[in-house]
């Protein structure tokens, strides 16, 4: 994360929320890995990625999200995302990430009612 603000993990209603802060590029790998492991340790029912404070996601960052999705798939754990700007929402759709995680407009929706969203549920 280039901003120096740490990515954090919190639990809300059984869902682990990863607040992804700063840039999601090659330098974010370590922080995202650590956050993912911390999220799993709480045995959540789902993981939600909060991109509200994310400024820049590049192709390496997309690869990191793919890595999280692959790990979640192995754990049979649903992944949700919210807080994406319209531009990155478009990129998640172009890359088909939106087909493999549930994209919500905000955190409440991501936690409470992920089915009623712009994206499709994890499969």
């Amino acid at each position, binding site marked *: 994360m280039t901003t120096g603000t740490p990515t954090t993990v919190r639990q809300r209603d059984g869902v682990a929320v990863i607040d992804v802060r700063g*840039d999601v590029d090659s*330098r974010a790998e370590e922080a995202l890995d650590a956050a993912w492991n911390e999220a799993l340790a709480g045995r959540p029912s789902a993981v939600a990625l909060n991109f509200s404070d994310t400024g820049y996601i590049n*192709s390496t960052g997309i*690869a*990191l999200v793919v890595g999280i999705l*692959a790990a979640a*798939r192995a754990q049979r754990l649903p992944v949700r995302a919210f807080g994406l700007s319209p*531009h990155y929402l478009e990129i998640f759709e172009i890359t*088909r990430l939106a087909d493999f995680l549930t994209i919500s407009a905000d955190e409440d929706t991501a936690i409470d009612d992920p089915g009623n969203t712009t994206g499709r549920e994890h499969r």
Partner: protein
Amino acid sequence: MATLTGSLRRRRHRRVAASPLPVAPTASEQVAPVDIAPNDPLLAYLQSAHGPVDLETLDLDSSALSELRAVGVKLSVPLISQGELIGVLNVGPRRSEQDYSIDDRRLLDSLATQAAPALRVGQLVRQQEAEARTRQRFEQELEVARLIQKNFLPHDLPQLEGWDVAAYYQPAREVGGDFYDVIPLPGGHVGFVIGDVTDKGVPAALVMAATRSVLRAFAQQSAAPGTVLERVNEHLHPDMPEKMFVTCFYGVLDPRSGVLRFANAGHDVPYLKTAGGCVELRARGMPLGLMPGMAYEEKEVVFEAGDSLLLHSDGIVEAHDPARQMFGFETLKAAVARHPGGTEAIARVLADVRQHTGPDAEQEDDITMVTVQRWPDGPGRERIVLDLDVESREGNERGVAAQVAAEVSGLGLSEARLDRLRTAVAEATMNAMEHGNSYRADLPVRVQVSVGPEQVRVRISDHGQPGPEPVEQPDLEAKLAGLQRPRGWGLFLIKAMVDDLEETTSDGRHTVQLTMRRGEQ
């Protein structure tokens, strides 16, 4: 060859009776080295001698022999290393005043045999040190010449509405005397100069600097290029070093009318690419600094829309192929006629020259080109709004993307399309830095943005080649199943973000051109 002096002492006084300790020679006991001329017969004698040579009984017509005898040398012991005489050990009389015994001579011979290789090593070390100092001095002089040239070439080219101006300068390893200049003149006119000083290195660089400064000064005093060259010649001639002169083309452009008035002091003829073919801009005149009182013919040409002028130095036409055939004027003229004009002409001509010389050939002379193109009419017209070199360092793509977006905002791209362009530029720059330049600090990525009436183009060039294999199309399901690596999204994203993507490779540079149409939502 200097003889060894450490063991040679002139006996000036009798020593006190037998001292139990060895006595070091005093300064007064030292003698000056005796130089032996390379053609002195003593050298040939010592070369073939076996062991110490008694100088008192030696019968040779040798001035060195006389000189050695005069300073009190009794024996000369040749120092031979690998069959070569590399020095002589000269010894004076024994302190006991007795003759040297056979044992003494054996001892000296043995000493010489052991000392010679060590002496040879010392000589070689000194020789290598001297050569290294010479090389270092040569490199320093080259660096000075480069610095002078760099400081006297324009740092920025003027932005002329309706015109594209570009320049290329690549010094040879042994820096030549090429120079170019673009001079803002009164009335909105612009002076274009290209020149070449005979000779190389620091002398050429100094004459180049003087010529450039004098020409700049006189250019402000007269709008007539012939008059300017006359005055420059008069000014330079008295102080021009022997066998040096300067060839120089000087043209004054009125950007509004497209009229170029020019004169030429013996420089290679520039070419004007027009709709009707390639035109040579000829004007008579002697090189600068050769003789006083020279007159310079003045000519005039009018640029039509799309016309493109190429000023060039002899490093292009005199580039040789492996069979020593020169690139030549006719080849260059044909290339100018065949290739697009403006900035593109520079890249294409360089590629042609490289193809002629072979990719690994060392550049023989400085290569300098300046192009001046009047914008074409119609939709093809473009102007360069940003041209920068970016260090290949991780993270720099962010700054490039921001600069490009700032430069083209307000040109009819919606916010969403501006975001797309920003992402595409960042990805393409990152690819260029990582895959093209391997993140080498000495290989910058060039980013050029041009704007036309209907489109914005971003060209991103690196020093790499496109990969031999087609890039794998990313498939998310395959990636999630572990059948593809998670990475590999870059080119896919770029293609998805822009209206058109084109990849070209020319002259060792790989270029990705991104196009966004203006006005689309």
